[in-house]
């Protein structure tokens, strides 16, 4: 189809609702996955931080999940949870764990010894030290992890189109099936744009949350 343009704008304007819904679902799936992943990772990382012996098995497990090819993981889950949002979320969450756990642990490990010693010496309890000193200081690296996890998830959500979810992935899949480039390109370009915008937003959030980490200090 040499005459077929990459994007047929009339189609786009006629299908804005559909495109918007796909974008919304994409964002929704991503936010849920990263939020749930962060909650689980935080719990596991704090466990590993408190009990050093738990660190190896926890990171090992997260590593194993991470190495399973995404499509394979979704397919494996279908018999258990069906072609559902739950299936895709389980997979998406699973992939965030390794990155988030690693970064939370790295952030906590990166808190300078003298700061910890000062915190203890001033009479902070363990809990106060964790919430008032260690976690705030880990924040730049944790946020860096969240950014990587989010961008990765935005990419992975497209794959879940194959199990009936997928947000913008649906558009692309439909485009392939109908041999209609406009849908493919709209889906692809919007998912890229989404990743870029969300990443930039998170970066701004990180800067706002860590005004003390000047210049490159907060980035890693």
């Amino acid at each position, binding site marked *: 189809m040499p005459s077929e343009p990459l994007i047929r704008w009339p189609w786009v304007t006629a299908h804005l609702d559909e495109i918007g819904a796909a974008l919304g679902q994409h964002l929704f799936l991503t936010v849920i996955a990263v939020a749930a992943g962060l909650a689980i990772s935080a719990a596991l990382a704090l466990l590993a931080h408190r009990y050093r012996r738990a660190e190896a098995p926890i990171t090992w497990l997260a590593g194993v999940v991470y190495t399973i090819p995404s499509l394979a993981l979704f397919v494996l889950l279908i018999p258990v949870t069906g072609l559902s949002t739950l299936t895709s979320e389980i997979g998406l969450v699973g992939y965030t764990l390794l990155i988030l756990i690693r970064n939370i642990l790295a952030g906590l490990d990166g808190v300078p010894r003298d700061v910890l010693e000062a915190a203890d*010496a001033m009479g902070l309890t363990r809990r106060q030290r964790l919430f008032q000193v260690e976690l705030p200081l880990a924040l730049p690296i944790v946020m860096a992890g969240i950014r990587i996890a989010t961008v990765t998830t935005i990419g992975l959500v497209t794959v879940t189109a194959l199990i009936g979810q997928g947000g913008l992935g649906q558009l692309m899949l439909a485009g392939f099936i109908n041999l209609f480039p406009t849908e493919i390109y709209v889906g692809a370009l919007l998912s890229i744009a989404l990743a870029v915008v969300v990443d930039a937003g998170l970066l701004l959030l990180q800067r706002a949350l860590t005004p003390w980490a000047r210049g490159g200090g907060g980035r890693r």
Partner: protein
Amino acid sequence: MARHVSEDPFRGLALPTSANRPAGAPHRAATVAFDHVTKRYGRRDDGPTAVDDLSFFVPAGATCVLVGPSGCGKTTSLKMVNRLIEPTQGRILIDGQDISTQDPTRLRRGIGYVIQQVGLFPHQTIAENVAVVPRLLGWSARRRRDRVEELLRLVGLEPGQHMNRYPADLSGGERQRVGVARALAADPPLLLMDEPFGAVDPIVRARLQDELLRLQRELGKTILFVTHDIDEAIKMGDLVAVMRQGGTLAQFATPAELLTQPASDFVARFVGADRALKRLTLRRVAELPLEPAPIVGLGESMGAVRARSGGRTPRWLLLVDRQRLPVGWVDGSTLPDAAAVDAAAAIRPSPLLGRETTLRDALSLLLDAAVRAGIVVDEAGRPVGLATIDAITALLHEQNDLTDGRDDPDAAPGPPDVTAGPTASGSRDDGDAPRGGRSPRAPRG
């Protein structure tokens, strides 16, 4: 309190702090007693002995310096006082109370702690950092704020300028001041300081030391201060505990006693062969007979100066600005009567000395700058007189003669003649006074 430490075994020692503290000055200070304290590291306390059967008593309001070579257990000893480390054997008593029976968190909130790396919280502003313990103690925001401002001023930082900055924005010296302010925040009766000035350059260190001494005169806290620098120990301590490898106590004495009667060869070697010179650390510029400073104001005419001094105008005149702060030296002999003295004629001023500067520091500042006289200034920075090398060395002779048991009235410092002015004199290598005292020469007398 334990029988064997309840009585102050060092009762006989003259403690300068208690003598110097202004009568009626408010203070809250604790006594500290080490009672046969031993620390062995290792899982089953089977490791090397870091601190070995340490016993000593620090009276309320005294500064006790723990000094000794690296690895002799100073930090370990200090950290046992706020229970960052638990002793293997023995007890530590604060105000007669065994600390092992106290809740560590509460204990620590009542003890100031200052370390070399400072350990400020990088994510909190200076104000928040200083107010950590008051916040833990539940002080109101208003009271915390007032306290922060008071403390920052106390340690020589302008609150308005520093309160809302982050630690990363401060210099090393400023950070260390904030560290001291933070330790003082809840007005603890005891301060622990582990090489607090170890990471700043020598000039800033000397200034911080002087400021701590001044603070301590106001506050009258009990301070346990760790250093491996014997000069710092002599300067800062009312009492000095010299420790040696293996964590044993080699001598516990006042600095003067340490310098005159080292208890062993180890102590004598550690104190160094330049003990006489070191004794200058125990004396202050305030004790020197000061020369009057020949002052000339900015814009004053030479004729007026000559008339004022009745024809005996010294060649070198100290030029001061309108605030009467020193600008530099002017060679008056080159200026005709009609000339008004201006700043362009001035050469750089000699080092400025406070009245509290130790003679040791004063001497090395003068030798470093290769000048004969330093300008002694008051708290406002205005000159009050000149301290000369001659006056310092006269004092050195005097004390050496006393040590030697001789009485030599001729060595008494007379008013030295400074008409020759402050220009470079003497060879630079004089400035290289032995430091650290590890010279192989045998200690004398």
